[in-house]
């Protein structure tokens, strides 16, 4: 995967497109940490992607933060947001959890629509990319590409590490059989809350990077449609697989880029993919391949 990502711009793939894929891939991986490994379907993850976007854009543009500080600040903000909303959401499970996260995200959406610093429908535009550590100019495409690549790799490695750590194992045990995990002495709610906060934080990292990359934070990223999109990416790629969300994000972003001129048909196509995935291949692309190779990918 690393080879593909490093080589892609040299092979003529449009770098901005690759960077967009990486941002969404990180977002989907973070989401999958919660859904695939924790069994918790959040329908409000847009609040972390979009919220971090606003935090990064505002701190970079108005407060003049350098990009790395803006990204760190935004990530810290979403960690806090995740901590608070997580405490509320994990009080219920399954579809209740999904609906509650959705409602919380909608609160964040209306806040973003009305708060003065977000500029409502316009969003925060013309965010400066700035100089990394005051030295490296991110308006250089290559520098920006390496910056995004590094963030993606760090985020992905972190998720990989989390999943394969004792914490990740306990999380999967809770997903498989919560009652048994509790009887073994694990505080299930605490583990779920931590997973939720981690997922929120990493989604925030993706959102902040995206805002710096596109120099824009807008309502699209906080709208609940985005929460649905990340579910779709994870579902298409394969939930509960490590590489699935990356593949899913690549498929969906590619589809949106190349079908853009079809207008609302994109929504229809997405809906059809959703339905097909749920009805016919619930394991997703990577999940099916893994099943075929009898390996967990």
């Amino acid at each position: 995967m690393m080879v593909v990502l490093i080589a892609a711009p040299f092979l003529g793939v449009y770098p901005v497109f690759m960077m967009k894929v990486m941002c969404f891939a990180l977002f989907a991986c973070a989401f999958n940490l919660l859904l695939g490994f924790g069994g918790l379907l959040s329908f409000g993850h847009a609040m972390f992607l979009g919220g971090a976007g606003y935090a990064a854009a505002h701190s970079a543009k108005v407060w003049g933060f350098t990009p790395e500080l803006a990204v760190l600040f935004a990530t810290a903000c979403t960690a806090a947001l995740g901590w608070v909303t997580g405490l509320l959401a994990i009080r219920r499970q399954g579809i209740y959890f999904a609906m509650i996260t959705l409602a919380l995200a909608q609160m964040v959406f209306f806040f973003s629509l009305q708060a003065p610093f977000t500029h409502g429908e316009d969003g925060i535009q013309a965010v400066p990319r700035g100089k990394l550590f005051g030295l490296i100019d991110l308006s250089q495409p290559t520098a920006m590409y390496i910056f995004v690549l590094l963030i993606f790799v760090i985020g992905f490695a972190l998720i990989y590490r989390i999943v394969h750590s004792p914490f990740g194992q306990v999380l999967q045990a809770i997903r498989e059989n919560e009652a048994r995990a509790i009887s073994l002495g694990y505080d299930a709610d605490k583990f779920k809350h931590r997973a939720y906060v981690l997922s929120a934080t990493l989604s925030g990292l993706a959102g902040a990077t995206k805002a710096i990359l596109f120099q824009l934070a807008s309502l699209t990223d906080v709208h609940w449609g985005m929460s649905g999109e990340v579910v779709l990416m994870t579902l298409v790629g394969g939930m509960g697989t490590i590489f699935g969300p990356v593949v899913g994000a690549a498929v969906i972003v590619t589809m949106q880029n190349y079908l853009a001129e079809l207008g609302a048909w994109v929504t229809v196509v997405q809906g059809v993919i959703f339905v097909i995935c749920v009805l016919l291949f619930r394991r997703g692309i990577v999940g099916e391949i893994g099943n075929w190779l009898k390996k967990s990918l």
Partner: protein
Amino acid sequence: MDIFGIPVQALMGQLLIGLINGSFYALLSLGLAVIFGLLNIINFAHGAFYMMGAFGAYLLLNKLGLNYWWALLLSPIIVGAVGVVLERTMLKRLYQLDHLYGLLLTFGLALIIQGLFRNEFGSSGLPYAIPAQLSGGQNLGFMFLPNYRAWVIVASLVVCLLTWYVIEHTRLGGYLRAATENPQLVQAFGINVPRMITLTFGFGVGLAALAGVMAAPIYQVGPLMGADLIIVVFAVVVIGGMGSIMGAIVTGFGLGLVEGLTKVFYPEASTTVIFVIMTIVLLLRPAGLFGAEK
């Protein structure tokens, strides 16, 4: 005349809008509750069915020349039939699986339906006239009450209470409630549970479409009219307690009123007040106001 420094006309006007919105919240969350009760599926496409109901009215009028009253009867039946087909062909395959798949499938269906309507009719709203019999209004002295709005409130209250009565106090409702508890046992008594499930889904969908027809003259008919409403309705359902029929009705109307009041006293919060209430309710009573802790 002022109440708390607010002119009574403005206050009453907002309360009326609140009640109207509440009627739609109640009808929609009632349908969701009925469907959830028997199918254990959160119907994300409920907003899309509501929108289809409104478009049904629009199309019946403009293509077939059938007026509002025919739409009120036919649109829910047609949309309900669509619901039955979807249940038979897709949803029934998911009952043995995690409930989340039902949510995801209906989310996909909602995307398809909304996308198709947007391709056909564009994103902007289409007007639908108030039926002649219900135009005009009453001057109540302290406020002006348009007839159509009064009709919507009364009609939805009647539909809600009738549904509640059927489910809680008739033999048919008894079968339904028994089937949610123990489908195998009810099946063993010779009742066709799958057919009952299908018809219940059709009925819930029909309720959403009915709300759509009633909403058509008040809001504009547009492909996305259900998309944002449905999230508020989810919050209503969480507050009322999932699956509780009475909870859906009472919180539906109640939250509509609260929203209206907020618009008078603190307009900035009117879009979020329901979610704030949801948060508070979750902290105090995670099962919802009328829900039973399982």
